[in-house]
C-alpha cells in the first residue's frame, strides 16, 4: 500500500521511519471482542488519526499502547524493536505519553507544582519553581500560553490540556497519544491545539490522535486509520479519502444509527413548567457562580444551556435540583415555589433530574437495579414501613424491557452496569414518575454514539409528551441538535439567547463571552 500511495502522490513516504508498528493485535473483554487482529503503522513526523465511533476500540488500542491494558495477542514494535509495555511507567520510559480526555491535574496546585511531580530532573527537596524556566522555554517554542505560576483551578479546559502537552514535552515524548482532545474545545481553541500539534510533529515527534469526528480527522491528519467494531477497515494518507467515503467507513453499511432524529417542531407549547427568576447561587468556595439568571421552560420545548465548563452550569443545575442553596432569586416548578425546599418537594412538584455525575448523584452503586429504580418513590412500595421488593422487581423488569437496559437482572448491583446503561436506568426512574420538567446536565457525557442517540431520543419524547426539558450541556452539538431555544452561559450569566436556527459560530463566540450587539 505504501508503494501505491507514493506513486499516487509523488512524494516519498518510504523515506519516513516507522515509529510504531502494531501487528496482529487482539483484545477481548469477557465475551466482547474489543480489537481483532489490528495492524497499524505510524511514521515519524506525522499526525496519525485513529477514527471511529465510540466503542470501535480506539481507546482500547491507545490503552494497550500506553500499557494500561495487556493485549491477548499481537506484537508492538517501537522504532523497529519489539517492546513489552506493561504499565504507563514503561510507556513513558520509551517516550510514549497519553493525554487523556479529561485533564489529570491537581486543581489546587500551580502549573509548575503539578509539572514538578513527575519531573525527573528535580531532587526531592528542590523547589518546583526551578522548572518554571523550562516551562517558559517550552511555551515559547510551541506557542503555548500558560502561566506556570497560575493555579490549575483558574485555568480553562483548553489551558489545562496545554499543561498536559507541556508535561508530555518535559517527559521527552516521542509518540504522543491524544484521546478525543477536542470534545470540550471551542473551534478557536481547537485550531490553536492543532497548530501546536503541527509544531510538535515538525519537531520530529509523532502523534496518534483519537477522534470520532470525520471532519476533524480530515482537518488535522497526515494519515487516517479507520476502526470499526475492533477491526481496521482502512488505513491510508488522508488525501486518499473523500468525506462521504470516510463517513461510510466509520459507520458501516448497516447503520443502526440511521434513525437520526430530526428535531422538528413538537406539538403546542404549554405553560411554564420551570421558572427561574434572578437566581444567584454561590460555588463551593463562596464566589458567585450563578449571577441573576432567569430562565423559563414551557411544556413541550427543550431549552438548551450552552457554555464552556465551569461557567456556572453545575451550580445552576444543582440549585434547581435542590442540592445547592439559593442565595437570592426564585425557582418555580409547575407554578409551585420551591426556592428553599428540599429535593423531595421538588420532585413532588414535577421535577426530574438527570445529574452530571451519574455515579455520585444519580444512583447508589452498591444497591441493586430494582432498588435504584424505586429510590424516589420507595414509600409506594412499602407496607407498614417494610419494603415490598417483589413489587419493585416487577417494576424493574418493566423498566429494563422498556428502556433496553443491559443488565443481568433487577438484583444486579448498579455499579456493574456500563455508563450508558446507568444513564438509561436513571432516565427510566425519572420518567416513570411522569415529570412536568426534566433538568438534564451533560446527559451523554462519556457515552458512546448509540447510547447517546438513545438518550437524545428519550429527551425528545419527553418534549413530545408535553413536558419541558432544560438541557444543560457542554457538548455544543448536542445543544444545537436538540434545543428549541438556546441560552449561552458565560461567567455565571446568560449572555446570549436564541431560537432554533442559531449559527454555531455565534454560539461559540458567546461561549467565549464575545457577544455581537
Amino acid at each position, binding site marked *: 500500500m505504501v508503494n501505491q500511495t507514493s506513486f499516487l502522490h509523488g512524494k516519498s513516504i518510504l523515506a519516513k521511519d516507522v515509529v510504531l508498528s502494531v501487528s496482529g493485535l487482539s*483484545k*477481548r*473483554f*469477557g465475551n466482547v471482542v474489543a480489537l481483532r487482529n489490528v495492524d497499524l503503522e505510524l511514521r515519524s513526523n506525522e499526525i496519525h488519526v485513529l477514527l471511529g465511533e465510540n466503542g470501535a476500540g480506539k481507546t482500547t488500542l491507545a490503552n494497550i499502547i500506553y500499557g*494500561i*491494558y*495487556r493485549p491477548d495477542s499481537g506484537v508492538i514494535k517501537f522504532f523497529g524493536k519489539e517492546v513489552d509495555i506493561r504499565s*504507563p*511507567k514503561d510507556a*513513558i520510559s520509551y517516550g510514549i505519553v497519553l493525554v487523556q480526555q479529561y485533564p*489529570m*491535574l*491537581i*486543581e*489546587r*496546585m500551580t502549573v509548575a*507544582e*503539578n509539572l*514538578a*511531580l*513527575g*519531573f525527573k530532573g*528535580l*531532587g*526531592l*527537596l*528542590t*523547589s*518546583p*519553581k526551578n522548572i518554571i524556566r523550562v516551562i517558559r522555554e517550552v511555551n515559547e517554542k510551541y506557542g503555548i500560553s500558560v502561566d506556570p505560576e497560575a493555579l490549575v483551578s483558574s485555568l480553562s479546559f483548553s489551558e489545562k490540556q496545554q499543561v498536559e502537552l507541556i*508535561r508530555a514535552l518535559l517527559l521527552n515524548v516521542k509518540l504522543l497519544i491524544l484521546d478525543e482532545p477536542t470534545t470540550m474545545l471551542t473551534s478557536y481553541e481547537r485550531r490553536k491545539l492543532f497548530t501546536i500539534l503541527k509544531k510538535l510533529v515538525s519537531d520530529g515527534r509523532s502523534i496518534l490522535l483519537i477522534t470520532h469526528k470525520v471532519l476533524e480527522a480530515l482537518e488535522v491528519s497526515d494519515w487516517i486509520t479507520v476502526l470499526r467494531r475492533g477491526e481496521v477497515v482502512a488505513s491510508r494518507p488522508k488525501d486518499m479519502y473523500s468525506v462521504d467515503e470516510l463517513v461510510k467507513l466509520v459507520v458501516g453499511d448497516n447503520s443502526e444509527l440511521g434513525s437520526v432524529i430530526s428535531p422538528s417542531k413538537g406539538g403546542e407549547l404549554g405553560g411554564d413548567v420551570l421558572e427561574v427568576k434572578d437566581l444567584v447561587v454561590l460555588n*463551593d*468556595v*463562596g464566589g458567585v457562580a450563578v449571577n441573576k439568571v432567569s430562565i423559563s421552560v414551557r411544556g413541550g420545548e427543550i431549552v438548551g444551556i450552552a457554555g464552556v465548563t465551569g461557567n456556572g452550569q453545575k451550580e445552576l443545575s444543582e440549585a434547581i435540583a435542590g442540592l445547592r442553596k439559593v442565595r437570592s432569586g426564585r425557582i418555580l416548578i409547575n407554578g409551585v415555589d420551591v426556592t428553599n425546599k428540599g429535593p423531595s418537594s421538588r420532585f413532588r412538584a414535577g421535577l426530574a433530574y438527570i445529574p452530571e455525575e451519574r455515579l455520585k448523584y444519580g444512583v447508589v452503586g452498591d444497591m441493586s437495579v430494582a432498588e435504584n429504580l424505586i429510590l424516589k418513590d420507595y414509600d409506594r412500595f412499602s407496607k407498614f414501613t417494610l419494603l415490598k421488593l417483589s413489587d419493585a422487581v416487577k417494576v424493574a423488569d418493566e423498566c429494563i424491557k422498556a428502556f433496553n437496559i443491559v443488565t443481568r437482572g433487577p438484583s444486579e448491583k448498579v455499579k456493574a452496569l456500563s455508563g450508558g446503561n446507568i444513564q438509561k436506568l436513571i432516565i427510566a426512574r425519572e420518567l416513570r414518575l411522569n415529570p412536568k420538567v426534566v433538568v438534564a446536565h451533560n446527559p451523554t457525557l462519556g457515552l458512546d454514539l448509540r447510547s447517546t442517540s438513545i438518550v437524545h431520543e428519550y429527551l425528545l419524547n419527553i418534549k413530545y409528551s408535553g413536558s419541558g426539558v432544560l438541557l444543560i450541556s457542554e457538548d455544543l452539538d448536542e445543544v444545537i441538535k436538540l434545543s428549541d431555544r438556546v441560552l449561552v452561559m458565560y461567567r455565571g450569566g446568560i449572555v446570549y439567547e436564541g431560537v432554533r436556527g442559531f449559527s454555531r459560530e455565534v454560539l461559540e463566540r458567546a461561549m467565549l463571552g464575545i457577544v455581537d450587539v
Partner: protein
Amino acid sequence: MIDIVLIGNFIFLTLKNAVPLILATTGEVITERSGVINLGVEGCMIVAALVGVVTTLLSGNYLVGLLLGGLVGALLALLHGLATVVFGANQIVSGIATTMVGLGITSLLGRGYVGRSLLGLRPSPLYPYDIPLPDYLKPLASAIVKQDVVVYISIIIPILCMWFLFKTKLGGAIRACGENPVVAESLGVDVVRTRLLAVGLGGFLVGLGGAYLSLGIVGSWVENITAGIGWVAVGLVAFSMWVPLRALLASYMMASLISISYMLQGRVGISSYFLSMIPYIATIAILAIVSVERFRLRLGAPAALGKPYIREERLG
C-alpha cells in the same frame, strides 16, 4: 500595677505548654496533607511519653528519650498507615484503635514507673545565668530566655515544615496525594509510599511532642498523662487550616488558655474543674465550626482527606 512576675510566669508556662501542641499539630498537618487522618495522635503521644521516661532513665540522657519517643510515635503511626494506606482500612476506626491501644498499653506497662523521679535528667534551661537587666524586665526576659532547647526547636519546626510542604517537590507530592491521589499517581507520584512517609514523619513529630510532655513538662510518668492533648492537637489542625505556621500560632493560643486555667486555680472563686475544662471546650467549639463540609474546603482541607486510595484494578 499588674504583677510583672505573674506575667513572666504566664509567658514561661505558655511557651512550655505549647511545645507538645506545636509538635503534634504540625505533625498531624503533614499527615493530613497527604490525605490520611490519624486519630491515633493521642495514642502515639502517650506511648512516646512513656518510652521517653523509660529510655531517659535507662540512658541517663533526655535527648535519647526524646528521640526514641519520636521514633516510637512514628512506628505506631506507621502501623495506622499500614492498616489504612496499604490495606485500605477505615481511617477513623484505625485511628481510634491506635489511641485505645496506646492508652491501654501505657497504663499497663507504665505501672512500675509511676512517680519515678527524673531528677537531674530533665531538659535544662539553655541559658541558666542571671540576666543583666533591670528588675522590672527580668521576669519577662527570663521567661523567654530560660527555656530548654526543645522550646526553641519547636518554633523552628513549623517553619521548616512550611518550607518542606510548600517549597519542595516532595512536599508538593504529599499535597497532591491529599488533593487527588488518582491524579497524583498518574503524574508519577507513588501514592502509597508518599502517604506512608507523611504518616511516619507526622508520627515522629507527634511522638516528640508526647515525650516532651513527660520529660519537659510533667517531669515524670503519670498514668493518662496526655489527658486529651492529642485530641486538642487534632482540633488545632483544622483550626490552623492545615498550614504549619498557623499551627504554631494556634498552639500558642491554646497553650495560653491552658496556662491561664492553671494560674487561675485557687486565685478566683471558680471551681478548678471548670477552669481546666476551658481548653477542651475551646477544642469542641473549633471542631464544631470546622466540620461543616463546605466550610472545610473553603478553609483549605485536603480534598481527599480520609478517603482511601486503592490502585485501580485493570478492567477486563
